[in-house]
């Protein structure tokens, strides 16, 4: 079904509605920031390619290139830990402004939930650029078609009404809990790996509600926005009431914002350069038009205001995540090892198992089973690891009436399968008296492994190119490949290939190494 004329008109109006946010015209030219930027500007995105924040960063990079053509803007995906990996990477870079972080409100909930508030404190929350309220979406073709129906169904279902969404303890989960409380209903949050999977489940009528971004509802005509957790109705969905209109106040600020941040300590003139650039991009007609179909509210807020928003969100997430039992607080859970202190007990167990494995290795090398040394050691290490995992699993959230398996259930099942299999296999090996198959001479391999390990360990010190320059001819020589011209050609070819393809074309930041910069500083 095409977007109705009303929706099209509404989207246009929403676009116009964004204009007052830019009533104050952006500066005509970017302020002078000395020789900045001296290198390509990297926009670090904390998710894999795809998804709204990745898309935001790529669209920003595209328009920013027009306003600051001196250097390219490169989008780099650093997924992991809900943003922790990306934040840590930016914090490891110099505070010179060449690495910017594309951030969302989800980062705050993740940092709070994992006890990494320090990352929030060390970031310069530079510019807020947009937000969209969370909306309650239903499958109107097969389920509830209005908030009233959702409400009545919830009263009938008790705590068995299913709300589908992404990420446990994330922004939407917290909003879902707040909405349910404010409305006086119970709901069961079913976390999916992605919003797309949750929406598919809603279309399959596997749940009643999907809590998501307004644009999600544009995907299918069956999806209907039945309530908006924002201050006013969305022009893209003029029929969807706000919670305040439904008589449920206090849900005017359930949203996800997006913006840009940097490592603290950036020179003031670079900060001003970015302020001007971001305002230019966010006022660009192409930027505004590009978001017209996405049901977002565009705007610009300075770092002071953005910082206050972040601080408010941090406090709010800490409160709700604690109430929901999702805040990681050491010692808050009853565990098998609680009596003697969970961490020391696990450390003791780890140390004990390491010692036992070393003793076993020495004993095996002197025994008649040394021809099966590797296999027996693998079995022993795997068994030890399984025992450590079992001990650690006692600190995981236990099963509860909703998640009856709990975080430890499946790992314990695998451990229960692994241990007898490993013991049985060990028994089978011990029964075999002699195995002539494994009379191999791994000395050459051990040398190769040693070379390769040194190479990997040297990369962070010497840098990728220099370490490769040493390793490649060295290892070929070690393998007795004695053709100096070929070795030289291969080395030069590889270095050129890796630099051109990975560094220059694919923007993979090959490690530069700590040694050369340190030497340069020393000399300078």
């Amino acid at each position: 079904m095409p977007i109705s004329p009303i929706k099209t008109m509404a989207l246009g109006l929403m676009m116009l509605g964004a204009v007052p946010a830019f009533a104050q015209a952006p500066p005509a030219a970017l302020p002078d920031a000395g020789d900045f930027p001296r290198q390509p500007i990297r926009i670090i995105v904390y998710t894999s390619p795809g998804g709204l924040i990745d898309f935001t960063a790529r669209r920003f990079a595209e328009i920013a290139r027009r306003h600051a053509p001196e250097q390219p803007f490169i989008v780099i995906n650093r997924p992991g830990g809900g943003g922790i990996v990306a934040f840590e990477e930016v914090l490891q870079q110099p505070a010179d402004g060449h690495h910017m972080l594309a951030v969302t409100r989800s980062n705050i909930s993740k940092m709070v939930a994992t006890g990494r508030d320090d990352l929030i404190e060390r970031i310069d929350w530079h510019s807020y650029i947009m937000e969209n309220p969370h909306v309650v979406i239903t499958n109107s073709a097969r389920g509830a078609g209005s908030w009233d129906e959702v409400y009545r169904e919830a009263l009938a279902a008790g705590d068995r009404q299913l709300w589908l969404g992404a990420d446990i303890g994330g922004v939407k989960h917290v909003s879902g809990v707040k909405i349910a409380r404010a409305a006086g209903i119970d709901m069961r949050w079913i976390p999916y790996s992605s919003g797309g999977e949750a929406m598919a489940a809603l279309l399959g009528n596997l749940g009643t509600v999907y809590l998501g971004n307004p644009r999600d509802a544009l995907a299918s005509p069956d999806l209907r926005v039945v309530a908006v957790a924002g201050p006013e109705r969305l022009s893209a969905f003029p029929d969807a009431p706000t919670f305040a209109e439904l008589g449920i106040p206090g849900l005017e600020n359930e949203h996800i914002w997006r913006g840009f941040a940097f490592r603290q300590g950036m020179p003031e003139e670079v900060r001003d350069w970015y302020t001007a650039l971001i305002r230019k991009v966010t006022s660009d007609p192409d930027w505004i038009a590009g978001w017209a179909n996405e049901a977002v509210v565009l705007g610009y807020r300075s770092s002071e205001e953005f910082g206050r928003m972040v601080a408010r969100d941090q406090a709010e997430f800490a409160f709700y995540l604690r109430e929901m039992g999702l805040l990681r607080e050491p010692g808050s859970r009853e565990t098998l090892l609680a009596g003697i202190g969970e961490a020391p007990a696990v450390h003791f167990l780890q140390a004990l198992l390491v010692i036992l494995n070393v003793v076993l290795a020495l004993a095996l090398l002197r025994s008649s089973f040394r021809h099966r040394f590797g296999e027996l050691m693998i079995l022993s290490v795997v068994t030890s690891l399984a025992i450590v995992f079992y001990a650690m699993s006692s600190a995981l959230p236990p099963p509860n009436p909703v998640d009856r398996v709990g975080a430890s259930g499946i790992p314990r099942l695998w451990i229960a399968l692994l241990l007898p299999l490993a013991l049985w296999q060990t028994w089978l090996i011990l029964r075999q008296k002699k195995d002539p198959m494994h009379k191999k001479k791994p000395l050459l391999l051990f040398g190769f492994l040693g070379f390769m390990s040194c190479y990997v360990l040297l990369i962070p010190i010497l840098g990728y190119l220099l370490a490769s320059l040493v390793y490649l001819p060295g290892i070929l020589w070690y393998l007795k490949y004695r053709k100096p011209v070929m070795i030289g050609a291969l080395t030069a070819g590889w270095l050129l290939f890796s630099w051109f393809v990975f560094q220059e074309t694919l923007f993979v930041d090959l490690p530069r190494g700590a040694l050369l910069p340190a030497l340069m500083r020393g000399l300078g």
Partner: protein
Amino acid sequence: MLELLLSGIGTVMAPVPLLAIVAGILLGVMVGAMPGLSPSMGVALLVPFTYGMSPMIALILLVAIYIGASYGGSITAITINAPGTPSAVVTAMDGYRMTCQGRAARALGISVVVSAVAGVLGTLVLIFLSVPLAAIAVGFHPAEYFAMALFGLATIASLAGANWMKAFLAAVLGLLINTIGTDPISGADRFTFNVTRLSDGFALIPALIGLFALSEVFSSIEERKFKATSPAALGGGWPRLVDYWRLKMVTLRSAIIGTIIGVFPGAGATIASFISYDLARRLSREPERYGQGSEEGVAAAEGANSGSVGGAMVPLLTLGIPGSATTAVLIGAMMIHKLTPGPQLFLSSPELIYGIFAAMLVGNLALLVIGLAGGRLWVQVTLVPKKVLFTMVSMMAVIGAYAVRNSMFDVLCCLGFGILGWVLRRYDYPLAPVILGMVLGSIAETNFRRAIMMDGGSVFFSRPLAAIMLVLAVLSFLLPVLSRLRGARVA
């Protein structure tokens, strides 16, 4: 519909779209063949270059990259035992064995032809059956996803060969490794030892490169297999038309399996490849050749892998929902070009949709031409002196593992998995079950727990489809094991 499709083909058969298709396939094949670069990364890297293009040309280019990259992973899987994607692991099991036997050309030929044919079949299914398939996919309960994952895991019994005990151990090891990282349901960190890089578990690509490519290098150096392949051994090794014809049923079946499983969001090409391989083995007249360099094995894996591309496009185009990592990037690209994927796109821009369909059909034909021509070049890899080859594979492993997340931690993991793979290989533990456990473990666990959260434990029996699939999964696991046990007792 046919009218629209013919019009789409007419649109695509112009110089600029054809150029976009050929360029996309070429780039995709290169991306896929480079360990460390996935199809989704390849498509994302090329998105900025499409800003100035019309939406039609941009999407044709990106879809062509997707098709090329999905195939490209098989090249390194066959030639150097370095599967670029988890689904290419299955291709490597027989493909690399064929290379070791001096039949690399045959393996490469089969993989490209079956990929292209399966790609065309998957696209035809997408064109004619996308709406009913999407309706089935969205109604799939987590209990059924769990059963599907179990089905995938049950293929261990087939992969195991004579060492079924060792195969189970390897699979459980993979499953246990898979539990490292953030628990998908409670959000708690599991077994990460406070290492941030482990909060999402081990990255799969470095693990794959280590377990397969590096361990192969280590084993070969240990056994001092430095003898170069003779060029004569490769001569005339390309399959003939009659050879492809012999594989018609396997190709057809694996394409259908790939397409259907690819439709389910989150399931994907890996489960499809394993199930297709398992089924092909069970229905084969020569099951004992699987894992030893079977042409049918290569065809079964590649057919499912390529078929899944068409499948993954079904939820994207019909519902606006990404069915795979690459289609998530394609959604972003569509948004950049101000298109909202979903059913309304069929009505508002049918010429675009059918243009994409036509591009997928033509793209697979282009893949056939480029793949067969390029195969002549790829096969030369096997002629490189082994000492040079091993060194270059170790270099490729390091840079490939690093490129996934720009992380030296991943490089260390890759090396660790390489050593693990070497030890396991040394004592005849199969490696594919480790990857199977690492890929399917989280799908099985998440959906098992999600199903119970939604409808209680009885849901596995109250939903007929889930119950039937579970029974079939258990039978497909138990029957080969019992028959082997009985065989051992008789012997």
